[in-house]
């Protein structure tokens, strides 16, 4: 079999695309990073009571349900004006774990969520569970952590969307 331009073309395409795919999956997989909530209104409003979680942590249906029930948001009233609500919902849905803007890590999160469910806490997803199963219960109770929603207590760069392992610093008390 001689080397033809067609064969060379197929070979090169295969090499380039496999390299690209590997780089893509390694890149977003081991980086454990999400685009942070850069939308100003979302960052301000969600960020006034807790860290403004990245939209990519939950699928669109979760955000839609949450934004419809903000007056009873985990036992607190977090209601917004209809205009603010619509703008934030749009941003969250457009950047959700199952949106077309999702990276590989987000799509993995989305695929682990049963289709009939719309979890309201990322900490109750399978993905969070298996990444935190080595953290003993007593550590969660430490005063400086206090809540599973308090990502920044251990993930020092969580606010910028980065959750990589070497940035973890668990508070001693």
């Amino acid at each position, binding site marked *: 079999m001689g080397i033809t331009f067609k064969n060379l073309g197929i070979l090169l395409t295969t090499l380039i695309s496999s390299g690209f795919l590997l780089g893509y999956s390694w890149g977003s997989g081991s980086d454990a990073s999400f685009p942070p909530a850069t939308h100003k209104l979302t960052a301000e409003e969600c*960020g*006034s*009571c*807790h*860290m403004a979680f990245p939209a990519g942590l939950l699928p669109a249906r979760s955000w839609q349900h949450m934004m419809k029930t903000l*007056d009873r948001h*985990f*036992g*607190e*009233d*977090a*209601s917004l004006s209809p205009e603010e609500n619509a703008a934030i919902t749009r941003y969250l849905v457009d950047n959700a774990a199952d949106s077309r803007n999702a990276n590989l890590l987000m799509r993995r999160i989305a695929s682990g969520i049963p289709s009939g469910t719309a979890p309201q806490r990322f900490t109750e997803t399978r993905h969070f569970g298996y990444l935190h199963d080595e953290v003993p219960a007593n550590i969660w109770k430490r005063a400086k*952590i*206090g*809540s599973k*929603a*308090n990502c920044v*207590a251990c993930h020092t760069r969580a606010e910028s969307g980065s959750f990589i392992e070497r940035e973890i610093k668990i508070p001693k008390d």
Partner: protein
Amino acid sequence: MKLYHLAVPLLLLSAPARAETPQQILAQYQQQAGAASAARGEKFFFARNTLPNGEVVSCTSCHTDNPKAVGKTRAHKQVEPLAPVANRERFTDPAKVEKWFKRNCKDVLARECTVQEKADFVAFLISVK
């Protein structure tokens, strides 16, 4: 639709909230409620209320016993001090003040606050030196 048909509502939307002073915000509440009482506001700030689920809450649950101190939400996010003497931004944006009264009154009292309660509350916090 011409572009200028959009211009006016867009300008209105982008207009920044008018900055006011805590005294101006207090004056607006007093206009609707009558004279405010810092002493009543202080009592209100520390009052404990039992929610239908049995949880005992008060303003101090998140804002601490000291209005000049930094507080903490249930999700452990820092809350800037309530007293204007410790936080110059406090009570300077009427829309923000109303938004948080609406939310937090429901959280603590399971109802909205009266204008009198709001006036007293602001009067108390302005009086903190």
